[in-house]
């Protein structure tokens, strides 16, 4: 079993865990954590399946993933700003309406 196969399998399981968290979690910040976990899994899969050149992993894939990492943190920062505003306005940390809580 080669290094690449190990990481593809691990990344798949991590992606699955992320999907599970995204669906099940109540707290929006935990949903964000799950999304970030999923993006890490996608990045690892992208790099491993892109193949290698004599000088290591494909440089185009590396640059794409590097761009992705920075975009992911920017999107996370924006999402956190939205979350903080949501809490200030409604006092809720999940997307359920207040009426649903009693049900």
């Amino acid at each position, binding site marked *: 079993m080669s290094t690449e196969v190990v*990481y593809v399998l691990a990344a798949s399981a991590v992606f699955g865990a992320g*999907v599970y968290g995204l669906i099940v979690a*109540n707290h929006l910040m935990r949903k964000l954590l799950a999304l970030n976990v999923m993006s890490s899994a996608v990045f690892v899969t992208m790099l491993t399946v892109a193949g290698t050149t004599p000088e290591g992993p494909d440089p185009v894939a590396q640059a794409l993933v590097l761009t992705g990492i920075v975009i992911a*943190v920017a999107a996370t920062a924006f999402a956190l700003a939205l979350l903080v505003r949501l809490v200030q306005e409604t006092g809720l940390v999940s997307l359920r309406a207040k009426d649903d809580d009693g049900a």
Partner: protein
Amino acid sequence: MTVGVVVDMMLGLALVALSLRVVTGGSLFRDIVLFILFGLLVALSWARLGAPDLALAEAAIGAGLTGALMLMAYRSIGADTEERPVRRRPGVALVVAVLTGSLVAVIGLAALGIERVPDAAGDAVLEALPGTGLGNAVTGVLLVFRGLDTMLEMAVLLVALLGAWTVLGDARPGRVHRVDRRTPLVGSLLTVVAPITLLVAVHLLLAGTDAPGGAFQACAVLTGCGVLMVLTGTLRPTAVAGFATRLLVVAGLAAFVLVGAGAGFVGHAPMTLTGTWAVYLIETAMMLSIALTMTLLFARARGLRGEGS
């Protein structure tokens, strides 16, 4: 089976176990800390896969910066908003998760089996790299071969900051719990660590042309310095963006556009970089822009000012 593969398997298992804890755990604070640990292990995986540029970026941005942003937001929404236990049944979600995970595994394993085509983009990059004067292929792709992507990435960062500013509304900038700088540890942390981070950032930027490093890694280190200065009260968040702040925030995008347009005027194809100086210029502007953008996003502020002013 070599020792390396055993290390890979241990790392892979740790990644899976940590990700499961992060998405299902009971204490949000603990799980944010575990997420930072997860990011550091991902960085180790990048190193194992032979991608040191990504390892540096993941450790600094994916783990460090995301973790700092999460912890900051966690504190401002208050610990009393701890989530209640999930009431819905997780059975369906588990099935969906296993199915999507298996799909990723099938796609990944199938793709690993494909023969690499002889004229793939990566090989073309390595072939054309000596003509650019750069030694680091990743920097070459980011700035020369796929410079347009990186330029638009700067635009995305700008939009994220503008979005956060809009959402911020009229709210005062988030109050930062300040640490007393007269305590010996914090004082020496600032006077010793802050200059060193600056030095490391500049080194990473300059090294990035030939060795692992570059604008993104440098900006992450610089952001770390900014976060430290916000936390110790050396930089105070303000509610108004000054002229210098606005200028610095768009500097990265502006440098890209101006250098690209300038090349068009002097007879080159538009949006080409005419020399290594252009790479350094754009990377420096990018580093300053991203570091300031990230520090502002961290402090949830429109501007920063020094303590004395």
